[in-house]
């Protein structure tokens, strides 16, 4: 197949590496897994108990790096969704909404602390189940997830200061459906603000990545939360739809593809449920000729190959000013050759496994379309493990705006490189997408940074950096990348009834 063609070898030389010869050998450095216990089977977590689905039905969860089964999890039925929502509704009524904010806060602080205590366990399970490199789950996903709980814990008893002249009240049961690319982090983004605001939760993790969610259920029990405050159910997309459309659900939060987000939004039209959607993206990463090139290279690499490119805000469209195009591409190709692809549990791995066979097929199909439409492909000549779902870090040059690889979200380690001459041309091209989640700008000129930042129709703009996240920092999209923000004070409003003082005839 065209994708495995022999790569160019010239760029490696510009890094002082002998062509075709690997000077830097890395011994395997696998993270130990013997301290981690994955149960052979997980039930649904409802009312602080793991219970079997009715009728009893399970599905297998695998490790995408080995294709070996990791565990079996319950396949929730429609009735199970009803049970989970009922447990959450009852917990909201009888305990959680009556608990003073300062007490809710302490529960959330407990969760944050326990997650920190058990951080390595979370990191290992996350990498085993999702395929992401251990250095990422260990250094990014898990610490950020704990930080989210710690941050929102502090809001639980300060809500009236966040919304002056309102009387913030919890909404009730929040139904939350999250994706497989950041299983634990997305759980934290969803659950922490929901609980801080006084809601109870039914969360459905993605069907390929439920294990850290069930590990989190263990944390909920250790923290001794009242039963029913956090409920976790697993199953396919239809179960997620069942959950969000349940009449006793007051608030829906979804992160995932734009197509599924639209299905959900249509189903909820007219119900009066509060909805936040965090959907797809096709971010522009714009490099000007005065940018610090070596830093920009690292930013570009982090922008698109972080988490195998399975990131909604990935910098998947690189716009390079023509005057620096050649040196930048040379450096980029050379840097691509140094990325280590392989065992997610190896501490040296940069790019791990693609989450599922289905996703791998989607990436492959889009990359093939790029080749077929005439873009020029480059892939480093790295060894891929013989088993598991892996894809070489890929970049395309000679991409035009109309190519599918420049328009569609690939959600894989695939970069499309385009060029521009003037700032206005960069703005025009960067904004020429229905998405608007994130963007990147690289330049040393301060006034140009602010011009570009203001011109990007995107919810997060990274200037001279990329893919940074923090619980205090709101995240979310413009246009078809969704609405609502997660993180910071802005992430709270979506979980509160802010209709204010008095009802004004309503």
């Amino acid at each position, binding site marked *: 197949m065209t994708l495995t063609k022999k790569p160019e070898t010239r760029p490696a030389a510009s890094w002082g590496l002998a062509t075709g010869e690997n000077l830097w050998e890395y011994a395997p450095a696998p993270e130990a897994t013997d301290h981690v216990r994955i149960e052979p089977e997980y039930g649904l977590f409802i009312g602080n108990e793991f219970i079997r689905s009715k009728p009893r039905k399970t599905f297998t969860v695998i490790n995408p790096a080995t294709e070996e089964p990791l565990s079996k999890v319950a396949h929730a039925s429609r009735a199970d969704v009803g049970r989970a929502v009922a447990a959450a509704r009852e917990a909201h009524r009888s305990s959680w909404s009556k608990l003073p904010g300062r007490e809710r806060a302490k529960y959330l602080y407990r969760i944050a602390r326990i997650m920190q205590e058990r951080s390595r366990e979370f990191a290992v399970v996350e990498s085993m189940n999702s395929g992401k490199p251990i250095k990422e789950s260990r250094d990014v996903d898990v610490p950020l997830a704990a*930080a989210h709980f710690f941050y929102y814990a502090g809001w639980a008893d300060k809500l009236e200061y966040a919304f*002056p002249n*309102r009387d913030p009240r919890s909404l009730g049961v929040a139904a939350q459906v999250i994706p497989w690319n950041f299983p634990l982090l997305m759980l934290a983004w969803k659950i922490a603000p929901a609980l801080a605001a006084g809601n109870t939760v039914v969360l459905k993790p993605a069907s390929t990545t439920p294990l850290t969610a069930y590990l989190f259920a263990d944390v909920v029990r250790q923290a001794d939360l009242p039963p029913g405050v956090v409920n976790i159910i697993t199953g396919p997309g239809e179960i997620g739809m069942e959950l969000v459309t349940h009449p006793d659900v007051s608030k829906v939060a979804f992160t995932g593809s*734009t197509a599924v*987000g*639209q299905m959900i*939004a*249509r189903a909820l*039209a*007219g*119900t*009066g449920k509060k909805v936040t*959607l965090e*959907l797809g993206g096709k971010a522009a990463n714009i490099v000007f000729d005065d940018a610090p090139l070596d830093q920009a290279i690292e930013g570009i690499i982090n922008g698109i190959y972080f988490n195998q490119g399975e990131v909604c805000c990935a910098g998947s469209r690189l716009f390079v000013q023509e005057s620096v195009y050649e040196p930048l591409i040379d450096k980029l190709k050379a840097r691509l050759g140094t990325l280590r692809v392989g065992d997610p549990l190896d501490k040296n791995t940069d790019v791990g496994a693609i989450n599922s066979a289905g996703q791998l097929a989607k990436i492959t199909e889009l990359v093939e379309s790029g080749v077929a439409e005439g873009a020029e492909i480059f892939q480093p000549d790295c060894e891929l493990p013989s088993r598991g779902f892996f894809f070489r870090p890929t970049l395309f040059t000679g991409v035009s705006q109309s190519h599918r690889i420049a328009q569609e979200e690939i959600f894989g380690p695939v970069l499309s490189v385009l060029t521009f001459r003037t700032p206005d041309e960069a703005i025009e091209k960067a904004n020429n997408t*229905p998405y608007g989640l994130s963007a990147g700008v690289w330049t040393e000129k301060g006034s140009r*940074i602010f011009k570009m*930042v*203001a011109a*990007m*129709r*995107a*919810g*997060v*703009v*990274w*200037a*001279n*950096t990329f893919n*940074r996240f*923090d619980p*205090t*920092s*709101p*995240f*979310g999209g*413009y*246009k*078809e*990348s*969704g*609405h609502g*923000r997660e993180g*910071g*004070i*802005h992430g709270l409003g979506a979980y509160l009834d*802010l209709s*204010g*003082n*008095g009802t*004004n*005839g*309503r």
Partner: protein
Amino acid sequence: MSPRAARTKTASRRRGPSVLEQRAAQPLAAVNGAASRADRVGVHKTYKLYIGGAFPRTESGRAYEVFGARGELLANASRGTRKDIREAVRAARKAFDGWAAKTAYNRSQILYRIAELMEGRRDQFVAEVMAAEGVSRARATRAVDGAIDRWVWYAGWADKYPQMIGTVNPVAGSYFNFSVPEPTGVVGIIAPEDSSLLGLVSRLAPVIVSGNAAVVISSESRPLPAVTLSEVLATSDVPGGVVNLVTGLRRELVGHLAGHMDVNALDAFGAEPEAAARLQEVAVENVKRFVAPPAAGLARYDWMADSAQSPYLIGEFVEIKTVWHPIGA
């Protein structure tokens, strides 16, 4: 009462035995003091659309009759079409960048100027609101004054709301991180059907104060104060295209506005609650921000109340943009 019902009622009242089976046209009422006297024939106003700063007639060439609360014929208003909506969206998109790029101080002064010019036409607005809504002069005056004061109130927010909604975020790392509100883009507004002026202003002002451009579908049965407002906007330094107003039959218009792919948000607060679910569904096509009507409708909504104006309303039609930059030497 719907215009059709009003018309039938009036027609049947006038029908006598010797009249043909044909609807007799009424003379246009004198809303704006255009009363004819023995020595002078009054000059009626043509009520037109407002698109891109100009006052075109609808491309359809059609009109519909607008009746006052007492059944008198007030005007032939433009019966706008899907094509007019498209033209209005195009004009709004064109105007958006420039309006959003104006300084907050500038937008603030322009909104204040709208109030100044409305004040100058106060009597005309009072007469139109009285005729449209069938309320007393005192009540109409309160509504007009309320509308004028609402512009003043929102004018003051232009350079203040970003300081309330924007934040500097203390991230755990060596980065300068801040979040600022930006206007969402082109916002469709379905104006309230009953509150012809105050209701419209209450929904329009919070949309444009942040820099959005608006496409408004006016009240169907009471469109005249809205058209007169557009004449005020045209002379208030509001750049053409920032506000566009289409009159007509709502069932022929709202779906096209809700489904338009270049409209970023839809304020359906003034829509009929029964229509809202369908509008929201259509609006999903390009993930529009959507503000629903109150479940119980607006029948008992008090537009004069303080709760009908709020900086939180401005917040419904802005996007929060977060910016990161490393801190280093």
